[in-house]
């Protein structure tokens, strides 16, 4: 499955692309990105009810569809292509995955069905500063409170954090080990505010906790749960990014094919053709890595962790490079707000550093590469 999709997967992609073409044209993207909530709840409901998108990678015993990460990544790729404004990445890819990976049997039964139905929107709170999403950069420590815990401190860059009702917080347990904690958004001591995001189609929040009651996700093998969550998220983000890059590439090609200067199509200039060819190369290489990475996670490859990091590093470079070329191919009009190119440019820019930049993921890749890892 690493090198081709099944017929069912192709059909799924086609249906989703058709849905998103109808529900997420750029007129709608521009409308949603200006709101604080940042998405259309009616579209979210259709996504969850009609297409069961929130349930894809949630096991059947917890109300999900029981599909793999490759399927989840296809969904992300199509959403990235359409630049869908939705809490999908924050809720389904990050929060639900964290509960799936870190929760006990009881906790999964308790939380995941509502995630799978799209009734619960969640968010994963990790970042505390410049350290980003690296586990070693987390310094928040949970305090024991009887059988439960209390959290105090600040998290930022929380994707879809403002609309979430369930927060999964990554913090240290009193023993210094990493833990994932469930916090109800309306719990005591939680305060949230929107952060002004470079990419207005993806909403970010700063979330503060002050002696807030929290429940530890205490599955059997909790220690690696955050890393596994990150692996899945990196694979999905790489998918989302190559979807956006491909759309930019196609739109730029369409524009140069239509644009005349010096009495001829600017697509007939060799410099334009070579740039278009380079863009195809960048996008296709990044797509191959993204597809391979998602399948490697599904198949439990020993080197999956290195491979997903490779895919994200590749996507970081390819997406922003494609966006820079796409603006250039549009010329001056590509730098205007009314032209749609900048919407993807900003997603590319924000995605470049989301879950770690290319350098950080290349380092993560090498630390998990080969026999010595």
């Amino acid at each position, binding site marked *: 499955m690493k090198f081709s999709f099944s017929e069912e997967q192709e059909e799924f992609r086609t249906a989703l692309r058709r849905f998103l073409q109808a529900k997420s044209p750029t007129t709608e993207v521009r409308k949603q990105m200006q709101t604080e909530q940042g998405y259309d709840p009616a579209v979210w409901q259709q996504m969850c009810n009609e297409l069961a998108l929130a349930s894809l990678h949630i096991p059947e015993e917890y109300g999900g569809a029981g599909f793999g990460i490759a399927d989840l990544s296809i969904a992300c790729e199509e959403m990235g292509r359409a630049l869908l404004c939705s809490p999908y990445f924050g809720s389904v890819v990050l929060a639900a995955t964290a509960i799936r990976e870190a929760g006990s049997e009881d906790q999964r039964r308790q939380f995941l069905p509502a995630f799978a139905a799209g009734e619960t929107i969640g968010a994963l709170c990790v970042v505390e500063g410049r350290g980003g999403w690296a586990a070693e950069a987390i310094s928040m420590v949970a305090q024991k409170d009887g059988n439960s815990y209390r959290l105090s401190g600040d998290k930022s*860059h929380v994707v879809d954090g403002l609309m979430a009702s369930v927060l999964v917080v990554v913090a240290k347990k009193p023993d210094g080990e990493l833990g994932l904690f469930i916090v109800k958004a309306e719990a005591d001591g939680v305060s949230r505010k929107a952060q002004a*995001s470079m*990419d207005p189609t993806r909403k970010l929040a700063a979330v503060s906790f002050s002696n807030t009651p929290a429940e530890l996700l205490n599955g059997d093998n909790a220690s690696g749960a955050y890393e596994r969550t990150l692996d899945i998220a990196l694979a999905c983000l790489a998918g989302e990014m190559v979807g956006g890059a491909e759309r930019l590439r196609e739109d730029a090609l369409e524009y140069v094919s239509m644009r005349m200067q*010096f*009495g001829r199509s600017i697509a007939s*200039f060799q410099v334009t053709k070579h740039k278009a060819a380079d863009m195809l190369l960048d996008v296709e290489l990044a797509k191959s890595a993204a597809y391979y990475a998602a399948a490697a996670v599904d198949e439990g490859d020993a080197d999956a962790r290195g491979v997903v990091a490779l895919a994200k590093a590749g996507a970081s470079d390819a997406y922003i490079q494609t966006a820079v070329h796409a603006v250039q191919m549009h010329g*001056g009009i590509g*730098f205007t*707000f009314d032209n749609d190119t900048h919407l993807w440019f900003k997603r590319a820019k*924000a995605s470049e550093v989301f879950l770690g930049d290319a350098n950080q993921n290349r380092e993560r890749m090498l630390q998990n590469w080969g026999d010595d890892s």
Partner: protein
Amino acid sequence: MTTMTEDEVRSQVRDYLEANWDPNRGLVEWRGMLAESGWGMPHWPKEWLGRGLPLGMTAIVDEEFNKFGAIGAAKMGIRVLAAATILEHGTDLQKQKYLKGIMTGEETWCQLFSEPGSGSDLAGAATRADFKDGKWIINGQKVWTTSAHHADYALLLARTDWDAVKHKGLSYFILDMHQPGVQVHQLKQMNGHASFNQVFITDATIEANMQVGELGEGWKVATTTLMNERRGADSARRYESGTDRPERIYEEERQEIATVMAPYTWYPQRTGRVDLLIDQAKAMGVWNDPDIRQEIAKTLTIAKSAEWTARRARAASQAGKPQGPEGSIGKLAASIVARSANLTHTKIAGPNAMLTGEEDGAGGVVAEILVSTPAISIAGGTDEIQRNIISERILKMPKENRTDTDRPFRDVPRNQVG
């Protein structure tokens, strides 16, 4: 007079300023006096508000003004290009009517050359000028016009002959912007600023005597404007801030500068702001991160090399040596520097590159860099055009075969706009 020595010029300027400079005068009143004396634009001809000094002497005059704290003629914006073009190609009537208002700053100008369908291909302008009942009737659309929203007059390039070949069918006009047929719309950029305008022209009129140069010679006249623009851009665009002195004339100048410079506040950011990299890395606590250090070093390497290339070109020109290739690669190098600086700022900012405005941790400057650098490789000649200039003019490589200059313009394929 034109053979005056530098010292003679200096002493004459000083005598004039000692006798006349008074910071409590109004800006326009003072510049009116400069126009009469010829010291506002000393390189203009004596009969047209100047003193007929060689262009090289103007720097000396400026120096004396600066020593005195005296304000000179209005020189910002398109006005200097308008003046240069009118002086070279305009009629006496046009000189009489416009030069003084240009010099005093009372009247503001814009340039209506670029069109949605003619960007890199400026001579492909398709705005129409049709002669009817003794007047020119103008129809078309212009774009990338700075200051159009408060301009009084425009330098207009329009097509008067559709049967002539491309460069021979254009004529050059002065358009009065204050008329119902001229509609100006601001054009917002991806970085949120609105520095340019679109200008929609519908049955606007121009008197027959406001054509500049001969009919069909518009491209030649426009070349004068563009050469002056390039000269102005080359002489290191200053980001003027005026002085903080309290007298009336300085206050009026500050207001003028603020109005003219308003569209350009983000311009420093489009260069990538290499100057901020090290301080930002320290502020974000990543100055000791070896990855980040490599990125900064790579960006600094090309930025410094580009700066030294520009200085090498200046040194050669000052020594009177012929210009080598180093004089032509600056614009392209600036694009590469800006792109590299953008990526390095992104890596320094880390997760904060996802934020905008004040939340970027640098007062919004870094966030503005990240969405402004694409402009540098488009504005003022795209990277693609720069590469053509380098390969064809410097390296003498053969030009592309052209199919747009050998036939009547009406037969040249082009996009229909509007």
